[in-house]
């Protein structure tokens, strides 16, 4: 198989076209320019081939550079000592600290240290649980087509940005969509997810809470993500409340909600 078809060589104005294609690929064209670009794509066979080739070339260059970086990391890994199996470093640290405190510290220092350990352990556990269970909800409304299509409507573009983790751009469009649709369930759900992904838990909680009252399709998803937001925020009673509600009915979040609940309770 040939990497590229060779019959499409010798194009005029190739550099200008390459610049245009690069802008298109980097999302720097305006809506009007995208439309023109796509019109030309339909009509101009040579341009279509050039776009195809540039996309493949860029992918290949990225692939090659990524492999190079991976090889460097593997070389670094080989130079490092083996990772010992066994308990986590946090437990080891606590033991060492306990020993040091027993030998040298005054009661005041002891009290201070224990307080610090509890707080940092709590923070660390909270982060661990959140990280273990959190992943942004997948885009099931307008899944991005990997073929040559480009999102055109604002709604498709919003979901495209969401899926490609360009949350800032996604947020802007979802806010507009939400205004236009008047808190439609899916828009509000993804809007809250965006706030969560960018670490704005306050806004995420607010939007998930609004959604909770009217949600039909995303009811359990909303409870799950709201619970995680509360967990990240350190509000365990509210986190527990949402997780417990999930376990009351049969749904795809049952198992993980029960698991997380038991971890929070045993902490």
């Amino acid at each position, binding site marked *: *198989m*040939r*990497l*590229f*078809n*060779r019959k499409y*060589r010798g194009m005029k104005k*190739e*550099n200008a076209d*390459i610049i245009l294609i690069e802008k298109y690929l980097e999302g720097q064209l305006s809506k009007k320019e995208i439309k023109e670009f796509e019109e030309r794509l339909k009509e101009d066979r040579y341009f279509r081939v050039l776009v195809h*080739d*540039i996309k*493949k*070339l*860029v*992918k*290949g*260059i*990225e*692939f*090659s*550079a*990524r*492999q*190079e*970086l*991976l090889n*460097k*990391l*593997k070389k*670094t*890994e080989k130079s*490092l000592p083996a*990772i010992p*199996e066994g308990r*986590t*470093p946090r437990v080891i640290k606590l033991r060492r600290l306990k020993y040091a405190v027993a030998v040298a510290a005054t009661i005041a220092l002891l009290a201070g240290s224990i307080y610090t350990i509890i707080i940092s352990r709590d923070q660390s556990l909270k*982060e*661990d649980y*959140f*990280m*273990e269970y*959190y*992943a942004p*909800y*997948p885009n*099931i409304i307008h*899944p*991005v087509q*990997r073929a040559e299509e480009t999102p055109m409507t604002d709604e498709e573009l919003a979901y495209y940005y969401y899926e490609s*983790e*360009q*949350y*800032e751009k996604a947020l802007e469009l979802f806010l507009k969509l939400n205004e236009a649709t008047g808190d439609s369930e899916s828009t509000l759900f993804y809007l809250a997810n965006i706030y969560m*992904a*960018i*670490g*704005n838990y306050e806004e995420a909680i607010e939007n998930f809470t609004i959604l909770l009252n009217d949600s039909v399709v995303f009811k359990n998803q909303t409870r799950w993500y709201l619970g995680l937001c509360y967990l990240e925020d350190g509000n365990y009673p509210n986190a527990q409340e949402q997780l417990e509600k999930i376990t009351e009915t049969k749904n*795809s979040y049952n*198992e993980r909600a029960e698991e997380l609940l038991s971890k929070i309770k045993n902490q």
Partner: protein
Amino acid sequence: MDWSSLIRKIKSGDYLELELIYKKYRVEFVKWIMKSYKCSGEDAKDVYQQTIITLYENIVNDKIQNFNSSIKTYLFAIGKNKFYATSRDKQRFHMEIDESMSMVAQETETNEEEIQKLKGMEKSLGILGDPCRKILELYYYHKKNMKEIADVAGLKNPETAKNMKYKCLKRLRTICQNEVV
């Protein structure tokens, strides 16, 4: 280290900075993956390396927006997704997927022919050689601007780097047109 300092250092293009981050979270991350997902140390290291690469790519592509979370939290979040993606690719991990997750699985299916082509392209880049290969990788993967590329590649000025980049891209295209995989 905070985000702004990390981003500045990584963007300056020094591999040593990325290596420092790699070393800093390595033990904790690998143990966490091994413990959470019951996988071997080697697999956990693979996941960690892919995670560090994604961190690098997100930094150079300006995709980091969650400055409220710590670097560790961010890495662990990527790691979790990487683990699932790697597991799916290697088809050695059976996981329960609900209706929404199955769509993600479809999207990340490995296309063997695509990988063969990418490897073929890697060979073409080898034929292209330096400085062209370096220039193209600096621009498209490492997201360097023309001035930075001119400095690294020892070219006269950004304009020269820009012209060189187009010539290199066209030369690579020609090589690919003649290359059979």
